[in-house]
């Protein structure tokens, strides 16, 4: 690919990259900075593009690293650090089960959940539910599920143990599941 068309191709991916970054960082200004950094790195490092993957995949790879850097910088923020131990504590959180280990309230039948994937409103509800997660929990869950980082990478980046990570992801899934059931699947009858 020659220079000008390569530049145009990179610019075309801007809105996609921004969407991923906003989703992950939940901070529009920071997301814009990160995307700007990514595009700049891409333009100055054109040689790094081997053509083995699409431009989109290549850019997403650069973006991931930039997002992780931004999260790591945020992580040093004392306010965030203070709430992290709490979010990793499993015992704090066992309101979902009775003392004997059975469900307090059993999960409902979601019917055919896949059919919801075609509906924009479903993703609005999901965004709402993600926003309700505690800040660090949400961020770690996004690293795993949106950025598809493996657990070793996340542990290394955030300097937490595998066990800490499993607890955070467990809490995220429990909370997200309950929220989706309350605000979407629980309403299925009415739809």
């Amino acid at each position, binding site marked *: 690919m020659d220079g000008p068309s390569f530049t145009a191709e990179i610019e075309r991916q801007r809105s996609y990259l921004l969407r*991923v970054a906003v*989703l992950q960082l939940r901070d529009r200004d920071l997301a814009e900075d990160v995307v700007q950094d990514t595009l700049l790195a891409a333009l100055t490092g054109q040689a790094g593009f081997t053509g083995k993957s699409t431009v989109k995949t290549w850019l997403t790879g650069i973006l991931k690293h930039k997002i992780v850097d931004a999260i790591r910088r945020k992580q040093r923020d004392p306010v965030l650090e203070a709430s992290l131990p709490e979010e990793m504590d499993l015992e704090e959180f*066992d309101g*979902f*089960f009775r003392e*004997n*280990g*059975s*469900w307090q309230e*059993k*999960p*409902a*039948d*979601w019917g055919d*959940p*896949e059919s*919801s*994937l075609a509906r924009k409103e*479903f*993703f609005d509800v*999901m965004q709402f539910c993600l926003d309700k997660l505690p800040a660090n929990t949400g961020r770690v869950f996004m690293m*795993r*599920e*949106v950025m598809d980082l493996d*657990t070793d990478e996340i542990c290394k980046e955030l300097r937490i143990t*595998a066990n800490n*990570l*499993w607890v955070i*992801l*467990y809490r995220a*899934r*429990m909370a*997200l*599941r309950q929220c*989706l059931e309350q605000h979407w699947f629980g309403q299925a009858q009415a739809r």
Partner: protein
Amino acid sequence: MASLSRILGHLIDCRQATRLISQTQDRPATGWEAVRLRWHLAVCVACTRFDRQVAFMREAMRRFRS
């Protein structure tokens, strides 16, 4: 036979089963974990739903991204 499967199904409780289900999204289960989980799911409708819902949420997050 019915009572045997009940006993096997309760080697882990729902709390432990959900933790294990979540973890298997992030690491492979050991053989013994997989066996206990399978026995539990065989007798527990609630955790079977949970298992499917967790897998569905991963799929939904993937779609969300693109």
